[in-house]
């Protein structure tokens, strides 16, 4: 069979790009909500800040799993 196009190497980078879409949107939503809630109620800024970071870390974990597994199975 005649080869018309060929891809060499690993598709991990493309896969990771796809995997980062979800966490990207998620992290965006988290910070958007934090900004919005702080704008509505500035005195709650200190109160909600730890939850912002916890939520950010939990969502970001998905993207980081993508990096790790890209190398593990790549």
């Amino acid at each position, binding site marked *: 069979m005649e080869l018309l196009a060929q891809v060499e190497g690993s598709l991990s980078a493309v896969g990771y790009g796809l995997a980062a879409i979800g966490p990207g949107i998620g992290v965006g939503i988290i910070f958007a909500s934090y900004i919005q809630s702080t704008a509505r109620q500035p005195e709650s800024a200190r109160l909600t800040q730890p939850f912002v970071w*916890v939520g950010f870390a939990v969502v970001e974990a998905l993207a*980081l*799993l993508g990096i790790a597994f890209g190398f593990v199975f790549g």
Partner: protein
Amino acid sequence: MGGDAVVAETVVLAQDDLPFPPSVEDFYLPGLFGAYPWITKFTLLVWLAVAAIIIFFLVAYRKPKLVPTFGQWIAESIYGFARKNIAEDLIGHEGVRFAPYLASLFCFILLTNLFGIIPFIQISPNSHIAFPIVLAVISYVLFNYVGIRRYGFARYMKNSLILPAPFFVQPILIPIEFVSTFLIRPFTLAVRLFANMFAGHVILLVFTLGGVVLFNADSIFVKPISLVSWAMAIALTFLEALVAILQAYVFVVLTASYVSGALAEEH
């Protein structure tokens, strides 16, 4: 036609002279002393971090003054931050007794993360998953231990697994809660820190070595792009500084919130 030749030449140069593209092998550094292959840069860095933190706090608190010196002020700020903003805010009044652990954890992770961008050191021990695993296991044992000691094993399990929900969703909910609390938590705690440091180092390698590869290219039009690549490397070093601080903070905040969850009365 000429363009193709240049590209091919660039790739060959890269493979001959440089470890480009960066790979996992770049993280396995050789032993420092021939006879002891297990003494690597990472071993040295971890002991350096431990020694630096101990000496810094001992010196800062040796002669505490009412009007603090600069060193004492830094040490008090770090401990005060871990005690007030993390331990008391997240765990509550009884969180004060965890403040020493949280402060040491924060300092150790922060310093070992910052090794990733300090010139001539430029690799973080946390970019090997073994070190984050140990830290995560300590936190995992801690929050389970305080929970079990407070409530006893059976009630602790009941507190953490059975949520107030209708009985017919419990068969789904209990396995989910079990997996998320006792399996995913320590796993993500370790992998998050590891992956951030690993990815940060890989990104810096890509732009630094990529600059060298571009500079070695034959085409005069490709060479100047290496400056862009190195400028990116410098900019990303500052981003890595931010990530180093943020990940130390996130690790400690998550540990504190797990402890507070284990100590909480009911859901």
